[in-house]
């Protein structure tokens, strides 16, 4: 059973989002459930800082030994920061998906829709496993 921190929100695409104090920016990563399903992550492609994306856009990819998954923007906005550490060491997605393995930050234009609570995400993933 993979962990689902109660203080984060989640998407159906197995990403987590965390609000930053400024109220405008979200940090985005993939969940422990997704990381375990992928296996050892060997390559992470993050979006470009300064690029503007729409909600639902594929903005990057996470690649493991056996498969590759797109990373989606949970909300429209501008990419303000990416985690260069995870590009250099993709295994951070496996070892610390909710911490050192974060992927990018986005300054929101509008509000994210359809985010799930930890409880709702738990229900979603228990149905899939």
């Amino acid at each position, binding site marked *: 059973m993979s962990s689902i921190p109660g203080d984060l929100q989640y998407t159906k695409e197995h990403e987590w989002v965390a609000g930053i104090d400024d109220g405008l920016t979200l940090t985005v990563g993939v969940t422990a459930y997704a990381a*375990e399903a992928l*296996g*050892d992550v*060997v*390559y992470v*492609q993050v979006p470009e800082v300064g690029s503007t994306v729409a909600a639902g856009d594929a903005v990057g*990819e996470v*690649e493991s*030994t*056996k498969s*590759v998954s797109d990373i989606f923007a949970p909300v429209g906005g501008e990419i303000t920061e990416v985690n260069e550490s995870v590009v250099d060491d993709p295994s951070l997605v*496996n070892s610390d998906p909710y911490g050192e393995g974060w992927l990018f930050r986005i300054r929101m234009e509008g509000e994210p829709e359809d985010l799930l609570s930890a409880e709702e995400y738990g229900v979603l993933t228990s149905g899939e496993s």
Partner: protein
Amino acid sequence: MSRPTPLRGVHEALGATLTDFAGWLMPLRYGSESAEHNAVRQAAGLFDLSHMGEIFVTGPQAGEALDYALVGHLSALEPGRARYTMIVDPDGGVLDDLIVYRLAADEFMVVANASNYPRVAAELTGRAKDFDAAVDDRSEQYALVAVQGPNSRAILGELTDADLDGLKYYAGLPATVAGIQVLIARTGYTGEDGFELFAAAGDAEPLWAALTEAGAPHGLVPAGLSARDTLRLEAGMPLYGNELTAELTPFDAGLGRVVKFDKPGDFVGRAALEPLKDVPPARRLVGLIATGRRVPRHGYPVVVADDGAVVGEVTSGAPSQTLGRPIAMAYVDGDRSEGLAVSIRGTHEAVEVVDLPFYRRKK
């Protein structure tokens, strides 16, 4: 529902990620597949391969029946030895790649892939009908466990008095391992020294437990299908369904040497394959090493970097632990080897063409 192997309980107790493979519920990985891969290269790994098929061909004309049914010259095989061979359809298309063990003068064991063995058993039965030979699919009665890696000799040596040093590569020996009757074969699919142990299905759990215990001081870890696939890819070994299909002949796959035209008598596929033996195939199977970090995967097009013209297709690809870069096998038109790329989800990523295998162990 996928069929479990006799070791399903063991895999679940180890916390394995299980996956459907060819209709079987198999361990994909137990923890980190990279760690499992590296353990096999540096120490040893323990694999459950009970999904493979074991088909026995017995009788006074068993060897002649296999000479007719397969592309190899099996009647010439000495008892105790094994051969890599193939079964093809009358058009020369590969139905499966096989390892055939001659257990005695009148007894052979044909080991077939999980996805193909019911078909192989049916074909062998039909092709043997005019010979004094019986075909018996005993796959359900057998478990297959493999110990692979540089420490596998030492590990197995602790559990058996069998003459392992006298057991050559591609040879088999009936023996007792940890008190269990097995056939020990010095074969594998990892590019390392190693052994495959054929045992009764009911003996699989105690055999696994004994190997686990004897292997612990030697760095043995359980290893899943994910590691098995990356190990065989580094070793340049074909996988049926990827490098080998019914649409390809052994010559297409660069494996024409397994077709023995000089054996006596006709064999299924001879007429179709004979004209191909001196013709350079339109495509050849090559190794690719990616320049970047994105992984060329099964089905991705191989293209000319300059103009994007499609000149081939990737059959298998994965990140290589040993090389530190993504590797792939691909069929590429003609003898083209410069200026190629793989189209990875719309982006051309440069690749270098190399001869197979990517990895060869130091003897």
